[in-house]
């Protein structure tokens, strides 16, 4: 850990909280020129927050940032850029209708005799592309015509054109196809040879071992370890990433006698995001769907609910094959989806608790059933919403209560199949427990629950079975109470699968 002379960036004791929730607790990190430094950790471990502190997007609450030996304080991303730090975010920051050169020099176009010096812009961009050995991209190509991998190269060229010496990459392979990942590897290695310090945030085991020189592991916002990659094994890493105390309580699982008939079944289902999905969810059962971000978990939920439907295979509800091409069909068939993005997709924030609760019922059912509202107090009581009244706008409720309203909205149509995507994201411990108990209670009443969660303890604690996804397909199935290591091994595509399961 003694910083060598080539240390470009030194973070010490970085702390950061959002709305009183600590996300980073005193994290240290050194970035050296010509080195790829990987940061690993589960979802929510604080990797992205750390990257954003480096990028000047977030200001740390405590700790110091040094660049080339001088302490700095970034007021915003521009300051970080001036200090030679550039970040490639997961979302691209390119204008699709403009050319590569126009994007690379956006905001810094060279001017000659009142005109943009297009010749120079193109030549300089070509020089950077050549420097990286990228001959498949022309500076005059329109960005919209490039592949995702090529767009990423353009992002990197844009970063380099500002004379960046430190490059942070956030899950750079998340959007890439397998063969494109190899191209990115080459590119990262070339950048390293040219003396750039690279911070590589990823939770994919193989990438990190293939590329990095050093690995820092974060867990729950804390620094766990930092070691040269060659001194670590993947077993070590899994252990560092998941080792945590499981002092939480979860409701009792289903007993074999509780399980009813198969409610939801997929047979070889797939679309352009996921493929070859075959599994069943029975009445009375909570099936966990695990996987890393981008593994296709949410795509399964969206497909089952008809948002981005399956294009191949069979989806059966209560034993009957169905074509669910729209959410409306799904609702009519008794399928419900609690989305990942509560505020964006789950609630009409400026409408009342009552209107939100009755939203689906009014929209999807007809006649007297749609108008029924006599059971509203019972519905809200069942999920134990705390609000000033049923006329309060939901935007004024806490996250936990908002989530309860989302659940009440679906209970109002008495679903047979309930798909929940990150049901406890961003809500406090008490509300979490209430949601857990509600889900189990629903299962006992014969609902088939498919639960997605990035929080492994929660997923393991709640599920009667766990399906693990990796790269758009099922990587395996684990029994109730499987270890986090076993789940992570499958989810990262790490070869431990058979050994642990």
């Amino acid at each position, binding site marked *: 850990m003694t910083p060598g002379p080539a240390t470009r960036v030194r973070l010490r004791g970085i702390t950061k909280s959002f709305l009183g929730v600590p996300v980073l607790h005193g994290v240290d990190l050194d970035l050296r020129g010509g080195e790829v430094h990987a940061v690993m950790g589960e979802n929510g471990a604080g990797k992205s927050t750390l990257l954003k502190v480096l990028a000047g997007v977030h200001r740390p609450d405590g700790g110091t940032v040094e660049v080339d030996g001088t302490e700095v304080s970034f007021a915003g991303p521009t300051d970080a850029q001036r200090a030679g730090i550039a970040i490639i975010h997961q979302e691209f920051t*390119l*204008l*699709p*209708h403009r050319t590569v050169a126009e994007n690379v020099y956006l905001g810094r176009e060279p001017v000659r005799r009142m005109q943009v010096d297009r010749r120079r812009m193109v030549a300089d961009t070509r020089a950077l592309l050549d420097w990286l050995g990228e001959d498949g991209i022309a500076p005059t190509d329109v960005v919209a*015509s*490039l592949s995702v991998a090529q767009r990423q190269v353009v992002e990197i060229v844009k970063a380099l054109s500002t004379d960046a010496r430190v490059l942070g990459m956030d899950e750079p392979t998340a959007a*890439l196809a397998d063969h494109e990942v190899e191209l990115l590897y080459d590119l990262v290695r070339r950048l390293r040879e040219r003396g750039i310090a690279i911070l590589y945030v990823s939770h994919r085991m193989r990438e990190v071992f293939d590329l990095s020189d050093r690995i820092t592991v974060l867990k729950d916002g804390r620094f766990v370890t930092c070691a040269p990659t060659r001194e670590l094994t993947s077993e070590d890493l899994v252990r560092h990433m998941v080792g945590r105390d499981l002092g939480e309580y979860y409701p009792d699982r289903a007993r074999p006698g509780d399980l009813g008939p198969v409610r939801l079944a997929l047979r070889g289902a797939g679309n352009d995001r996921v493929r070859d999905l075959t599994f069943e969810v029975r009445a009375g059962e909570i099936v966990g769907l695990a996987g890393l971000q981008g593994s296709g978990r949410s795509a399964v939920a969206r497909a089952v609910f008809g948002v981005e439907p399956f294009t191949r295979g069979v989806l059966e509800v209560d034993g009957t094959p169905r074509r669910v091409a729209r959410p409306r069909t799904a609702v009519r068939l008794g399928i419900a989806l609690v989305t990942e993005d509560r505020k964006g997709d789950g609630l009409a924030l400026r409408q009342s608790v009552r209107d939100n609760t009755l939203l689906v019922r009014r929209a999807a059912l007809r006649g007297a059933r749609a108008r029924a509202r006599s059971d509203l107090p019972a519905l809200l009581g069942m999920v134990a919403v705390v609000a000033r009244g049923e006329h309060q706008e939901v935007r004024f409720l806490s996250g936990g209560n908002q989530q309860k309203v989302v659940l009440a909205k679906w209970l109002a149509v008495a679903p047979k199949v309930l798909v929940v995507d990150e049901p406890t994201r961003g809500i406090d411990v008490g509300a979490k427990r209430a949601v857990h108990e509600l889900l189990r209670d629903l299962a006992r009443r014969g609902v088939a629950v498919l639960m997605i969660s990035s929080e492994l303890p929660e997923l393991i604690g709640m599920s009667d079975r766990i399906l693990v996804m990796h*790269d758009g397909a099922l990587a395996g199935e684990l029994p109730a109470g499987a270890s986090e290591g076993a789940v992570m091994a499958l989810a990262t595509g790490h070869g431990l699968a058979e050994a642990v399961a």
Partner: protein
Amino acid sequence: MSVVQENVSPVRPRTGRAAPRPRLTPVAIVYLALVALLVVGSVLVGLRGEVLLDQAGILNILTRAAALGLVAVGQTMVILTGSLDLSVAYLIGLTSLIAAETMAGRDGMVVPGVLLALAVAAGVGLVNGLVITVLKANAFIATLGVALILRGYLEDNYTGPAGDVPRGFQHLGYDRIGPVPVAALLMLAVAAVAWWYLSRTRPGYHMYAVGGDIEVARLSGVPTRRVVVTAHVLCSVAAGLTGIYLASRLGSGAPYVGTDAGYDLESIAAVVLGGTLLAGGRGGVVGTIGGVLILATLDTIFDDLAVDPFFKDVVRGVVLVTAVALYARRMTARRARGRLA
């Protein structure tokens, strides 16, 4: 990651996912449609024993195109920037009055009249731009509000034409070189300058960037406010030029010369017909001129055929909707190809 991939070329990134070069750009479609329209129109008018593209016909089309073209070139700039200007029609009326009243029939006052009208126009554009960028009002509402203010002023102070343009200045409205009116040349010159500005200068680049994605532009160091304000000032100046031209044609200023012709929505229609995205970021002046010529040609054909004015509007509406739906299809096809896996 050990999944077997088919069709993988080991060396180059697979370009199969990348969009092939579009076969036809919107600009090409517009001009092909214009040619097709001229052919069909000539046949239809020919069936009545008349000629569409004789000297009078060309003059008619270009005269119509001159005024709409001037407004639409300005409108192109604001729309490219992701904004919109609904105040141009009243501004045209106002500037026609300012020019004509300042000139008051005196040859010596032509230059001051023109300059004053343009200065007032620029001021209105500045207000539009500042309301949108500083007060963060939605462009639609902001420019509608300014339009209402201008209307209130016009209704309060004018009941009909006012002012007097000297005979000398009427050359702008009526002179022509062969079948080409001087005003059409003025319009094309303005369009050429706008084309150069948008496609060759830094502020022009920034207009595309702001319209494409204002956050990306901001994070790349583009002065987004200044860009939006500039676009609005230029748009209003273009509307001012239109007002001055119409004053020279009418011989006086007229409060409703802009609104009677519906230049607010008409100019937006021409821009969109010309292939510029209403959301901004893509398009340009060349397409807009094509759109203007199509609308002007349609009008001329309808006049020659003595078509019912209501049916005329129906056809114009169909043309507009068809064009936009056509471009939208191409856009979604392209986006689907470029989308992440």
